[in-house]
């Protein structure tokens, strides 16, 4: 759903490295090189970032759409 705070296997903190990792990979950098430069050495931690899909973004889209519709209907401004 959302990036785990720590590596499942060893307990290293990886949550704070996700956004940089995702951004740099999207920019076209090699994922392995990004992991190296972030100091993630063990393969247990590397798979945490490599295999992660941020599904929460897909779920949030439903709420964003609902909110837009509410606004369009003047849901909040009706007396």
């Amino acid at each position, binding site marked *: *759903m*959302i*990036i*785990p*705070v*720590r*590596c499942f296997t*060893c*307990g*290293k*903190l990886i*949550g*704070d490295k*996700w*956004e940089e990792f995702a951004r740099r990979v999207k920019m076209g950098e090699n994922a392995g090189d990004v992991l190296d430069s972030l100091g993630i050495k*063990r393969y247990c931690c590397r798979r945490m970032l490599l295999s992660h899909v941020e599904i*929460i*973004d897909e*779920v*949030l889209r439903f*709420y*964003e759409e609902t*909110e837009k519709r509410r606004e369009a209907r003047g849901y909040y401004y009706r007396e």
Partner: protein
Amino acid sequence: MEIEVLEKDDKNIRLLVRGVDTPFMNALRRNILAEVPCMAIDEVVIIENSSVLHDEIIAHRLGLIPLKTDLESYNLPEECSCKSEFGCNLCRVTLTLDREAKDGTVTVYSGELVSENPNITPVSDKIPIIKLAKGQKLRLEAYARLGKGKIHAKWQPVSMCAYKHMPQIKIDAKNCDACGRCVEICPKKVLAKNGDKIEIRDLLACTLCQDCVDVCPKEPPAIEVGWEKNTFIFNLESTGVLPPERILEEALKILDKNLEEFAKQIEVQKT
């Protein structure tokens, strides 16, 4: 006992320890994993949560956030003089979070947790706790306590703590014809070919896998991989809650205390 620091930075330490036996090294390792206390969020009161994650998941994520620990100012809850289940100022830190997504989707980070003690804060400010869509709210109060790794892994001060034997590689120069097969097969690139000789490039990296011995075409093999008795390479990686040397220090103190307790118990059994 002889200790040499091979590498050290703010989170990692690598030691070469001579003159101790395996039981001692293992006791030290297990003490670091299970007995050295550190701070983690242990109880969460959710006041309002309209986010897409359940209360329990948020509480679990909060618990896993490593907090900078101050062992001098805080007691373990079971050793605290307050004897209260809820805790007092000497055994509990309150952190609060209050966030509403007013315009558009936002990510709530660990840096937004407000601690009552400015010294007890998350190790990193950039850990995502949750994402909120517009209009969603998260309001909570979290209580951090000292605890030990044997109760829950969130209280482990280290993310890696391991030792291995000091490798010892012997190359029989008379028997070896420097075919280079051992150089190629070594997964850690320990060996290097120098002219008509095989040389050891990085002895500490050797994992004692014996692949080089198996691949050697000579009979008996011209290379021999063994280990030095009672010499260890000790690796420690802190999660950031305490400096690595402090973790070692604490572990030794606790080991001493436990051994004393053990000796006392034996005395009691004897009489």
